[in-house]
């Protein structure tokens, strides 16, 4: 952990509001992105993301700095996402609903995921939205453990070491599960695009 991060943690443990603001601003997107891809539902993701930062505020004293703060934070996000998936599965009428597709831009006008493809034509926009929907459906078809690995590695682009620290899995297990998950997504896409 860097000196700057250690100082920030010290301020957060003293419940400095400005330190908390900085944490949410710095990690908000990463936490939200992970949760949204795990759940596939924006409303639920917003709710869980809030719970994650509330948990951080409440339990930051238990963070001993052995791992990076981001690792600790994403472990909380991953666990709370899995808990929400289980909770929603027990309520079949409310759960399992995926968003149609992510908006091309966020409510504040910043570019959304579709804009990453630098789209300038409506048909391409639709095509990208459809691809994103298919991807999300393919991710949702995986069990939560495989889903988490694909999101951490291929969406959030984390290293195997960081993934190991978040999930507690050895590298060999991560690699074999990740390969199965990637192949399953590819097959699902092949099936839907042919």
């Amino acid at each position, binding site marked *: 952990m860097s000196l700057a991060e250690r100082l920030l943690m010290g301020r957060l443990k003293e419940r400095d509001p400005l330190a908390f603001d900085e944490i*949410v601003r710095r990690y908000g*997107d990463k936490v*939200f*992105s992970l949760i949204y*891809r795990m759940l596939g539902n924006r409303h639920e993701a917003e709710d869980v993301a809030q719970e994650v930062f509330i948990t951080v505020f409440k339990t930051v004293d238990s963070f001993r700095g052995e791992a990076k703060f981001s690792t600790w934070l994403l472990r909380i996000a991953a666990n709370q996402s899995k808990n929400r998936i289980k909770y929603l599965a027990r309520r079949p009428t409310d759960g399992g609903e995926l968003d149609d597709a992510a908006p091309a831009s*966020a409510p504040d006008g910043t570019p959304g995921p579709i804009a990453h*493809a630098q789209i300038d034509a409506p048909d391409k926009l639709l095509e990208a939205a459809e691809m994103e929907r298919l991807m999300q459906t393919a991710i949702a078809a995986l069990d939560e453990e495989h889903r988490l690995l694909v999101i951490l590695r291929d969406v959030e682009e984390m290293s195997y070491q960081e993934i190991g620290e978040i999930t507690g899995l050895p590298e060999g297990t991560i690699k074999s599960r990740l*390969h199965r998950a*990637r192949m399953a997504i590819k097959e699902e*896409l092949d099936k839907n695009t042919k």
Partner: protein
Amino acid sequence: MDHAEAQNEFSDFVDGTLPEIKRVEIEQHLAVCIQCRTELVAFKRTLGSLGRLKQTAPPSLLSDVKQQIYKRSHGRFFAPRWKLFGRIPFEWISLGTIIAMLVYYLAVLHGSPGSVHGAP
């Protein structure tokens, strides 16, 4: 090396985590196997699409979280502050008051000496 064997190594091949010998074996297989080359292209396309799924948090996340903490802590944390005085530290207000009183005292002392001495 057969198709299944080659395709089982696609993840490590793409991630660049294969041992040199294995990597060369796969490259040799790909050079002669159009089926595996096609599969590898589709595999890489899938990974590319996954990489474009990042999301941004809603702009209201910070204010929503703070509001929740305020509610759950019964107002202990993140209470709304006065717009003007909430941002000025009390130390500065105290210092300003002391300076103002000092100036006033000096002005009274030197400005109207007649008032210090009583009327005859």
